[in-house]
């Protein structure tokens, strides 16, 4: 049977497959089918010469959730909230994104004000129901919701994190009266205090539920119709995976489902190459994603915002995205300057050279014009060189420069923007790009990686063996992973521990059971425990990783020392002047399944029979004749730039002044020539 990873990106759907019996590995790549992304999934399987019936485990990463949020393309959702709090989603935390920009606006609320309804009800901060739900009043709201054609309802009541009974009463009534409408309560999504973060996370789940339900339904139906009988797993934002049944309800955890696989791969690279600090970059058709992997782990944030002041309170890989990719369009602004992106030609119509009706120049067209991209992409269809030139000429002419100069300018602008995005990620954590190696993923990545690295002065670039299908490959290397969290307020001390132990054990049990239900062997499950603690009087907590033995033994000295040490590490100070409080408890359960991590034992590809060729390539204002070498041949000898290293899914551009060599895992390492 085959283990298969599939990543549906903005432009391409990528596949990596490995046969556990024969060690054979295959890849596939087809254009994404935005109107029905399932077609692309099936297309990728076919492209790799596989049948769904041969797949034992299918791990799937998808950008469907992210796209729906960014484009606000989801069925109408409604919110029912406490009187006086109708605008929590819209007011946010009352601040602004840019300190001094006079014309700034804030993101459109996920649920429009006309669909946000208020109810006279109240629970106190101590959990007392002061005003119970009035069903007659609620029914009038439900009538309105029915009339508005709403597909999902977020129930977000003040103080529900401490007592969810009013929320549950509302949800029950809505479910009873509106079967077929999805209902979510904020306490069930995330029982944390501070209404804005909880309501926002709840709104994200509510708007995504119908989108993802219909996507997964269709995916499963089509796979089943083609005799798929294996397990279907979905990548999630925390860098793990979950079953499709879990994913169907925990949709807010799919926001970074796409890039998660690539970061899993980047983490594996740190083990293979000896570079401990890696800048992960992924250039797809429409976007450029970047993040940091240090010591084999992607950095996790709990303060992720989809857009400014639109938080999703789930643990997520800290990834930054900008609109720059192979499909990014070149254009001329009102001031007559050449600009690139963030708009993209996507997969339909795609770049002009695809011959699918696109006439506007993209980065891919620019690369083709300059000879950096092989005209017979993947050997599958031939790129239209003339169409690319014509498209770029539409910009070159008004600018009064040559087509080549214009194409090279477009690429320089795009790579500068990519470098800038990397700098922001590094700077926000105070890192220096010179201490990192840049790992380049995505179909369009290795064409630009050296230029981005040069702009950052990053000394080395790694193009991993499966960089062209990185997220798909990485997907097969991720563990099952599940987070649980519970609000539990207590003064820290020996008296508090029995209850803490009991509640931790309860959520630990839930988390473990969730993994086992998804196919993990109990013995493989690894649990980490976190107490959110603070000095009594503070309002924010620190996440303190706690040792299970210390918890079980009630070792207050060890537990409090862990808190003091964490506080000192994060904030530089600690004190015995203050009492300690526990605010919440959380666990993360992980289990490896499928492919073992670490070793990459895929056999090397057969030596290409194609003789090394050459073609004219434009660099730094002049044409040079540069060698074109098949990847399989390049692995056997060092390559000096300018040169192209090509295989069906990847084209590595080795600019003048750079050299490339392959390591034993067939990762390509590029360095500036000494």
């Amino acid at each position: 049977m085959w283990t298969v990873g599939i990543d549906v990106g903005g432009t391409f759907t990528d596949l990596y497959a490995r046969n556990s019996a024969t060690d054979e590995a295959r890849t596939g790549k087809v254009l994404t089918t935005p109107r029905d992304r399932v077609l692309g999934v099936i297309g990728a399987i076919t492209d790799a010469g596989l049948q769904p019936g041969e797949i034992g485990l299918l791990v799937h990463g998808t950008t469907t959730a992210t796209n729906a949020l960014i484009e606000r393309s989801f069925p109408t959702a409604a919110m029912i909230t406490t009187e006086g709090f109708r605008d929590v989603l819209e007011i946010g935390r009352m601040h602004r994104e840019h300190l001094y920009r006079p014309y700034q606006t804030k993101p459109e609320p996920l649920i429009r004000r006309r669909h946000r309804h208020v109810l006279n009800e109240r629970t106190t901060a101590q959990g007392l129901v002061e005003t119970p739900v009035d069903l007659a009043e609620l029914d009038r709201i439900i009538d309105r919701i029915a009339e508005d054609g709403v597909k999902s309802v977020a129930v977000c009541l003040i103080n529900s994190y401490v007592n969810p009974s009013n929320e549950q009463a509302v949800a029950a009534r809505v479910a009873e009266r509106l079967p077929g409408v999805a209902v979510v309560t904020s306490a069930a999504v995330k029982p944390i205090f501070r209404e804005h973060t909880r309501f926002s996370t709840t709104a994200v789940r509510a708007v995504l539920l119908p989108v993802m339900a219909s996507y997964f339904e269709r995916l499963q139906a089509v796979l089943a119709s083609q005799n798929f009988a294996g397990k279907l797993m979905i990548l999630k934002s925390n860098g793990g995976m979950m079953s499709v049944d879990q994913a169907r309800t925990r949709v807010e955890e799919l926001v970074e489902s796409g890039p998660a696989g690539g970061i899993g791969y980047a983490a594996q690279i740190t083990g293979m190459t000896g570079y401990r600090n890696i800048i992960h970059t992924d250039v797809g058709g429409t976007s450029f994603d970047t993040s940091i992997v240090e010591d084999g782990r992607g950095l996790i944030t709990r303060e992720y915002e989809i857009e400014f002041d639109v938080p999703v309170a789930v643990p997520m890989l800290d990834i930054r995205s900008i609109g720059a990719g192979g499909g990014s369009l070149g254009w001329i602004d009102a001031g007559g300057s050449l600009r690139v992106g963030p708009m993209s030609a996507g997969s339909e119509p795609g770049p002009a050279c695809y011959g699918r009706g696109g006439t506007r120049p993209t980065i891919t067209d620019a690369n083709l014009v300059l000879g950096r991209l092989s005209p017979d992409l993947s050997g599958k269809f031939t790129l239209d060189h003339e169409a690319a030139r014509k498209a770029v000429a539409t910009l070159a002419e008004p600018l009064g420069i040559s087509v080549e100069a214009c194409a090279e300018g477009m690429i320089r602008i795009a790579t500068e923007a990519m470098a800038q995005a990397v700098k922001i990620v590094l700077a926000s954590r105070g890192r220096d790009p010179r201490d990192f190696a840049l790992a380049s993923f995505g179909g369009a990545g290795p064409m630009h990686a050296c230029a981005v690295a040069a702009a950052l002065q990053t000394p080395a670039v790694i193009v991993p063996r499966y960089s062209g299908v990185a997220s798909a490959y990485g997907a097969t290397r991720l563990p099952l992973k599940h987070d649980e969290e519970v609000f539990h307020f207590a003064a820290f001390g020996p008296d508090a521990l029995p209850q803490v132990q009991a509640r931790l054990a309860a959520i630990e049990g839930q988390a473990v059971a969730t993994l086992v239900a998804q196919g993990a062997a109990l013995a493989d499950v690894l649990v980490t425990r976190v107490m959110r603690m603070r000095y009594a009087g503070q309002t924010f907590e620190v996440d303190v990783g706690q040792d299970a033995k210390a918890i079980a033994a009630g070792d207050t000295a060890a537990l409090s020392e862990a808190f003091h040490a964490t506080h000192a590490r994060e904030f530089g100070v600690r004190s015995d002047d203050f009492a300690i409080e526990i605010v919440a408890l959380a666990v993360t359960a992980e289990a490896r399944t499928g492919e073992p991590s670490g070793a990459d034992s895929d056999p090397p590809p057969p030596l290409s029979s194609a003789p090394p060729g050459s073609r004219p390539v434009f660099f730094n204002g002049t044409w040079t004749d540069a060698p074109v070498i098949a990847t399989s041949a390049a692995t056997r000898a060092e390559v000096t730039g300018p040169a192209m290293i090509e295989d069906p899914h990847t084209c590595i551009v080795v600019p003048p002044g750079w050299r490339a060599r392959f390591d034993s895992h067939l990762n390509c390492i590029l360095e500036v020539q000494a």
Partner: protein
Amino acid sequence: MTATPIDPVTFEVLRNTFEYVCARMTLILKKSSFSPILSENLDFSNAIYDPDLRLIGQTANCPVHLAAMHFSVQAVARKFGKDGLKPGDVVVLNDPYDGGTHINDVTLTMPVYDGDHLIGFAVSRGHWMDLGGGGPGGQGFGTHVAGEGLRLPPLKLYEGYRLNPDLLEIMLRNSRTPHYIKGDLQAHMGALLAAEEELQATARKYGRDTLLRGMGEMIQYTERIVRAAIANIPDGEYHAADYADSDGISDAKVWVRVKLTVKGTDIHVDFTGSDGQVAGAINSPYANTTAAVYTALQFFLAPDAPPNAGMFAPITLTLPDDCWLNAKWPAPVVGCTTVTSGKVQSAIWQAVAQAIPGLAIAPTCADANWFVAAVRGPGGRIDVFSDIPAGGWGGTPYNDGLSVTLDPLGNCTNMPAEAAELLYPVHVQAFDLRADSGGPGQNRGGLGARFRFRFLGGGELSIETSRTIDGSPGVNGGGSSPVQVLVQERPDGGREVIGGVRADGSWKSPLLSSHRFAPGDAFEFLSTGGGGWGPARDRDPARVLDDVLDGYITAGHARAAYGVALTPDGRSIDAAATAALRNL
């Protein structure tokens, strides 16, 4: 001596480092402080300065701290001399007349050394909940600064990283909220130590000379950007005015009058003609007025440039000697940051609107609406609850103004209702949008808010605000927003306007000092939105309909202010009636 400029990559790294140092200080202060006004409202700023006392970087959750902190570092240097400080010394001050602005803004300054060499100063300023005075949070509204709390000249709170316990004891004994002070000090100290660590690491990595040169180049870089922007504004003299409703002692309006002179790449701001020093607590020390001027202009000069001393160089000021914007001891000043800065900024924006009408935006609510309440809890325990329910921003040439966003002078966040109710004996009953509160316009003002909480055990409340006589003015033919209103509601539902215009048309000053609330009484505040941009009748009727459907405006307002009539079900436009209204 001519130094070769720093290579572009190192320059970029240093630029990011200065930003990052301040961002890290901010994160530490937010996450580890004890006062909710710091941790939830983020009413603080962190900055770094070079050895020559020039601003190098700042995260300004409160832009109005921006230039004002500069005066703090100068006061420290004046008092101790650079040679009088050692590693680990931390100087505290809050004296409005010696490096501070209002007493609640406590500033801590720490010199940073690379070996024996001074490489800069780390400065952390936070709004402390209470340092005594005649009303909670220093909002005593007397006629003498002594009534506003404990005044601290520059004093060494730490020497060689060791706390001076006597000084701490004095602060603890003079506060209504001593329980916050130790924890907040610890948080400020964490922020300063982080800056020290980061600057020292940068000096080690790139060399001290490179670091110091980078600081200088960064300032020049910002100054170039600012001057280029000024060059784009037509030369000329532009006049404008705005006012505070009252100083809380007399009912007279207090005026800011400003003349903006743009010439080449310089701007001169002249406040001659503004009112003299007033008896009440809204006088503004020089440092605060300066900060308001820079903040206001920054929006139209260099919104994205690195915030440093380069922003200040092209801008000069004239302040008359007897002026409420140039306060002298012993004038009371507690309202300077929240009331007065807004009026200075609003007047400057109106002057800018004359210089570059197509690019200007309409004035904002121009008030922070800062209230402080002493709230009585179980066992008679008194705590101090404070928040800043914002108003809206003015319409812009491109879009409607921001709704319920803290005024330009600050960028603080609100206190979440659930956080407030965990901490204090209050029920927060509403914080939502106030319909019809944006100034009508082709692009309307953003909306203000309805904010309301109930005192479970009673207490007293102080607040200082304005815009209760006129709302936020519009520009380019846009309309103004409605006035702000302060209401006290009894448990039986009886409502009384305690600030602003009452039902009988009489008016009461919106500066309230220790106003009493019985158990169960609620305080309701209706903030105003921003002014409108362009004539309201030029607004696309479809946008007006959308506003009605979303409840941003009422159907009556659509008709009266925008000349748009809706069908009886309120769901679509009555085209004929609208045409008739608009052709009147």
